[in-house]
């Protein structure tokens, strides 16, 4: 990768100095940002690998790369920049960007960098992830050499199938999480060191087999109740539960742990898509229009900015909703349009011209970017006026006409739907109920049904993968068309019981 990117020089270096000084001036707070310039192929590679120059070998990175490359070749999409949540914060710029684009992009990057450092949901992410990811790659490559690429890849595929079964709440278990990670890192390092030492291999494999048999005993240990096991304290972290309780080979546990770490690393970004992009857009817009923009660049800037902010009838643009919501909050706190006095005022004229000249807007949005995630952001600041101004609607497929049609513009419907899509980062909430279901060592998961059924086709295939990890029958309790339904896979057949 080293020869694919290069540091800034010349004009870009001067621009960086300039944009950096504005970011500081406006009070943005970030870890040092290291800009690198690269060509489109490199930026496609980085994007396909979640921003990181080095990952473990897996076909899905190849798939994403395939799609990004085709999209670029057909002129449909172009990635201007990639920024990674690390310390120092790495940011990659596309060398084909115009100078004005580079300015926008740098301002945008400083916005992201500030968000990464300050938003509460990012407080426990490992800022050293660049090295950690590379290390994961080395370990998995080594396993592949030892056990065969197909075998290891197949296991990774299975784990990826349950990658979304993690617990948002765990992002705050700071010290505990940290200790676990350090422990794992230590044993992993020991293992790599041990590998170099031929003599210890026999001993190690003896220890491993002993460990394993103890583990299996523990799982099969009969329990009297088939209610939820007492010991599950983070039932939504199914990955962790399996790590602790499934009969896995050492290399398998290691990979499961690695993929779980990576899933948790990316989780905060999935929880704050609207806030993060909105914040970065707010700041590129503010910095450009108040400081950095030259008269000759206005048209290009407006064109670029409008492209990023484009509204779509099919989808919600997180950049657009995000930036508008921050601006709305800033306006409301500047003019005092919040709190009981404003909310209970029924004089429309007074409300329309409400202005208490509080000037609290800027500090309010800084506070918001620190404490909220997308769900609470929308829940707290998404108002009927905002909803109407943004011309939001929900749509639905109409089987009679065979097309998607606008369903409603009703505020509470829209808000409800938006929150529904955002809650639990868009994944169904699934908890481990028991590892000894029916007193037969079966795994029972429960889907907390909040109105939308699971896709049972996908669920069946997921169970198949879960079975390969758990090695005993696996069950999920959910609802289908209002009826409690248990879907079971016993290694050969699927069974549905109401």
């Amino acid at each position, binding site marked *: 990768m080293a020869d694919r990117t290069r540091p800034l020089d010349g004009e870009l270096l001067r621009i960086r100095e300039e944009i950096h000084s504005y970011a500081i001036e406006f009070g943005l707070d970030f870890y040092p940002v290291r800009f690198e310039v690269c060509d489109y192929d490199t930026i496609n590679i980085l994007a396909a690998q979640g921003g990181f120059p080095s990952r473990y*070998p897996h076909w899905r990175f190849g*798939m994403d790369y395939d799609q990004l490359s085709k999209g670029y070749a057909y002129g449909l999409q172009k990635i201007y920049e990639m920024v990674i949540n690390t310390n120092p914060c790495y940011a990659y710029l596309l060398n084909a960007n115009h100078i004005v684009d580079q300015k926008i992009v740098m301002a945008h990057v400083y916005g992201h960098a500030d968000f990464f450092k300050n938003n509460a949901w990012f407080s426990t992410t490992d800022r050293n992830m660049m090295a950690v990811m590379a290390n994961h790659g080395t370990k998995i490559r080594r396993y592949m050499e030892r056990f065969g690429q197909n075998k290891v890849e197949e296991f990774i*595929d299975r784990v990826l199938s349950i990658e979304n079964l993690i617990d948002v709440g765990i992002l705050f278990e700071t010290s505990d999480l940290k200790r676990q990670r350090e422990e794992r890192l230590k044993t992993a390092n020991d293992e790599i060191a041990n590998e170099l030492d031929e003599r210890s291999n026999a001993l190690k494999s003896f220890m491993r087999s002993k460990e394993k048999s103890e583990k299996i005993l523990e799982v099969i240990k009969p329990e009297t109740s088939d209610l939820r096991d007492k010991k599950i304290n983070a039932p939504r972290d199914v990955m962790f539960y399996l790590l602790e309780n499934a009969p896995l080979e050492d290399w398998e546990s290691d990979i499961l742990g690695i993929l779980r770490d990576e899933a948790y690393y990316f989780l905060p970004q999935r929880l704050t898509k609207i806030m993060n992009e909105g914040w970065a857009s707010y700041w590129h817009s503010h910095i450009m229009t108040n400081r950095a923009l030259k008269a000759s660049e206005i048209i290009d800037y407006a064109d670029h900015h409008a492209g990023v902010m484009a509204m*779509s009838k099919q989808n919600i643009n997180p950049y657009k909703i995000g930036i508008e919501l921050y601006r709305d909050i800033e306006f409301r706190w500047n003019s005092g349009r919040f709190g009981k006095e404003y909310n209970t005022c029924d004089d429309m004229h007074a409300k329309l011209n409400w202005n208490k000249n509080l000037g609290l807007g800027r500090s309010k949005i800084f506070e918001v970017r620190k404490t909220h995630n997308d769900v609470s952001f929308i829940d707290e600041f998404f108002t009927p006026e905002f909803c109407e101004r943004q011309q939001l609607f929900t749509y639905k497929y109409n089987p009679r006409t065979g097309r998607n049609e606008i369903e409603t513009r009703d505020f509470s419907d829209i808000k409800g739907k938006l929150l529904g899509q955002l809650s639990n980062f868009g994944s169904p909430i699934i908890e481990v109920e028991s590892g000894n279901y029916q007193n037969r060592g079966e795994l029972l998961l429960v889907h907390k049904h909040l109105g939308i059924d699971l896709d049972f086709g996908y669920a069946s295939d997921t169970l198949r993968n879960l079975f390969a990890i758990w090695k005993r029958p696996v069950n999920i309790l959910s609802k289908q068309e209002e009826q409690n339904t248990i879907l079971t896979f016993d290694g050969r057949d699927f069974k549905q019981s109401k």
Partner: protein
Amino acid sequence: MDHPIKRDHARFRKIVKGRIRDNLRKYVSKGEMPTPKGDGTFKIPMPSIDTPRFKFGDRNQGGMGQGNGDSGDPIDGQEGEGPGQGGEVGNSSGNKELEVDLTLDELASILGEELALPRIEPKGKKAMPSVTNKYTSIGMTGPNSLKHFKRTYREAMKRQIASGTYDFFDPRVIPVKRDFRYRASDAKIEFENSAVVIYMMDVSGSMGDEQKEIVRTESFWINLWLKSQYKDIEVRYIIHDATAKEVDEETFFKTRESGGTLISSALKLCREIIQSDYDPNEWNIYPFHFSDGDNWSADDTKLCLEILDQDLLPSSNVFCYGQVESRYGSGQFYKDLASRYGEDDPKVILSKIKNKDAILDSIKDFLGKGK
């Protein structure tokens, strides 16, 4: 050294092609074939492999958008687009389809590339000379519509400078009559190959809408490819049940007849068309016949084989028969042709089209030999 992602990429392509990791096959959505959307743009589905996860069923889920319109207004204009992709906000992954504005030429080259189609070798001696006019030169006379502004103003400026009337402080250039220049054509003799495609489709009762859709899609792509190979191409359409008639394109795809099937009727009409309009010495002739393979009687099949042997095969480049699977068709005609011509007769290409997904393979059957 190349970046390691190229290895991931190669591995992904191999999985998609079904060469390794066979157990992933059911999750692969192949996406090599662009589909026309009717407004000049095409959807280019990209191959992808779906990892199964616990996720919400998308029935009735719909989505959210921004913009004007009243409730009940369509949001994507097109009818029959199928359900849109709801799901996570701002995450338009899910369905990995690109919508692109492409010219037919570009599309043909994508198709050729994806299917690794060989270029067609036209029948050599039948190349016809033709005269085309190309606007490659400049003349002093011509109609206003062909006026060459740049050259005209250049002439005027030359004249003004030469005659000393050009004023550097008021650099106006005004052409007069003799400055005007026009694009002019040169006659060029080119040798080109012409081709005619004659589509025949069985529209008897057993060919349902799904079967016709398959024929429609397939013929669109065949036309596209042949058009990219021949400068001049004519397309004729014949439909038949127990009798055959020539129709225009629209009727060809819309008609739903019923009744029995006499394949010979179509072949006879095809023979007549060739005899009256297309001299095999000058034309590359491509008869395509699509049917579900249920001919009326063995006698008629015999008659078909006779017509093929005596008239159609000698005059055409290749005769293609595509058999669309239907619930009612017996598929007997394919077997008859196969037993007569075998699988690798150079003049006859047979292909079975099981469902929509098999269209690509079938196109490859037909065009993959470069005939």
